[in-house]
């Protein structure tokens, strides 16, 4: 398997703050990679560097073998990589359908065709009945699904999900886990930022752990769960490692 995405010693500095330092990993086609780490570890910053919202201060990002740092987010999306937002960003005054249409227009110039693609993707996430509703009026669970439908409508090769389960109840999280697995079955590569370890273990093939901007560990879910350094990063030093 060849790497679809390769992050090569990426660093991002904000003045003196080292948000990411020398982070490297690669994501093979078709897998789900978990990106975990305590708050402030630099996960979202890394997403921003990968998808073109920030230029990395150092290092390179390759997508399908092509160097993409320096490209703008819309160009990255056109190449087939698209992200969701930790704090959901529905286009509030547009309908649910039109939100997905906006995504679908990434691949087609015909609004009619975009509507067809959009409806398909709403069906995938189970929002087709909400199509005519205004996106701003959706409850959080449906907003998260709309984020997913919207990125799927861009017909990506790879999606980066920034805490799609944050703020959801157990049943809603369960639905999202099923969706991630269904999307994986369709061959889409995914990078998932998540705090819920149970969800991570169930969905991810491999996990990268960030701590204070640096890569702390990488491995299979079993390896990561049993890694004492990861425990320490999350729970601190004083005896927490036993938990």
């Amino acid at each position, binding site marked *: 398997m060849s790497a679809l995405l390769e992050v090569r010693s990426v660093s991002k500095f904000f003045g003196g703050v080292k948000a990411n330092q020398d982070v490297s990993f690669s994501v093979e086609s078709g897998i789900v990679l978990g990106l975990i780490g305590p708050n402030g570890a630099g996960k979202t910053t890394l997403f921003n560097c990968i*998808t073109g*919202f920030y230029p990395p201060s150092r290092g390179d990002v390759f997508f399908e073998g092509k160097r993409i740092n320096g490209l*703008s*987010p*819309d160009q990255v*999306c*056109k190449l087939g990589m*698209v*992200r969701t*937002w930790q704090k959901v*960003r*529905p*286009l*509030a*005054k*547009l309908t649910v359908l*039109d939100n997905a*249409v*906006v*995504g679908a*227009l*990434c691949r087609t*110039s015909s*609004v009619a065709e*975009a509507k067809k693609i959009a409806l398909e993707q709403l069906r995938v996430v189970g929002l087709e009945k909400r199509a005519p509703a205004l996106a701003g009026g959706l409850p959080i669970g449906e907003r998260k699904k709309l984020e997913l439908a*919207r*990125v799927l409508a*861009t017909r990506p090769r790879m999606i980066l999900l920034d805490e799609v389960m944050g703020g959801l109840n157990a049943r809603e999280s369960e639905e999202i886990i099923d969706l991630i697995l269904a999307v994986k079955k369709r061959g889409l590569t995914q990078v998932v930022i998540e705090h819920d370890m149970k969800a991570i273990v169930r969905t991810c093939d491999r996990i990268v752990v960030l701590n204070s901007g640096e890569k702390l560990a990488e491995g299979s879910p079993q390896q990561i769960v049993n890694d004492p350094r990861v425990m320490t990063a999350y729970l601190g030093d004083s005896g927490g490692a036993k938990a």
Partner: protein
Amino acid sequence: MKTLIPLAMAVVVLALIPLWVESPYALHIFILLFIGIALGESWNVVGGFAGQYSVGHSAWYGIGAYGAFILLQKINLAPWFGVWVAVALSVLAALAVGFITFRLRGPYFVLASIAVAEIIRLLALNTKDLTNGAEGILSPDLPPLKLGGAVITDWNSKIPYFYMGLAMALFCIAVNFAVKRSKLGYYLQAIREDQDAAHSLGIPPTLSKNAALAISAACTALVGSFAAFYVGFIEPQQVFGIDVSIQMVLTAIIGGIGTVAGPVLGAVVLVLISEGLRTTIAQAHLLVYGILVIVVILVMPDGFLGFISQRLRRKAAVE
């Protein structure tokens, strides 16, 4: 189709008005209304759909007006040809400005748009050889409009202006319709709602906003030159002043921003108010504008159109 039939009927009724209304004042009100509608719709493309609240559209209005006037005066180019040169100039200027100012967001963009219009006003004031400065330009006599050998009009009554104005208003409405349903329309609305989200979904924000501004500036320049010839006189403050820009913004806000019908409604309200008050309290009609804006923002944040359609929906829900 549902909206097209009443629209077509309204157009036919309007087109027949000069046949049974002879009062020049009544025709004048209609012409003002058409100009108001066309300006509101022009602004709506960039202000309503893209959510970029330009308060500097007088720049494009004025370039349209001065461009067509100067071309007629200096090289005797008939306005119906000259206006296209003026429109092209206005689009070029708008793109140059947009390229710089669209990097700014929210209030900073608004301030930049005001500054740009001021700069252009001062330019017009000080390039005396071209613009005749603060004294302004009195419209030279318009050559008669001919088609083949037949004279269509010699511009001696308000009726040709009435039809030109009507055509212009319809054109600007049609432009809004087309933009709203197009790919660009979706892009602009997505940018208005959340620029970063739009950007992540493959939308190039600066390019899209510039496209909207180009369309908006072209329409505004077209209306500007028409209005200038209708009034027959231009000077920098009158066409480049902030009053023109504010009028455009208010038309859209009061009617219903980001909708096609909103600016039509807004123009009706504003023209009726300003004409109704001009005779009684003269300049104080600006005061009434101000109060109206406050009321609209407080009571009906989606404008008259949003207010009415919400009422209708509520009524339908009760029944």
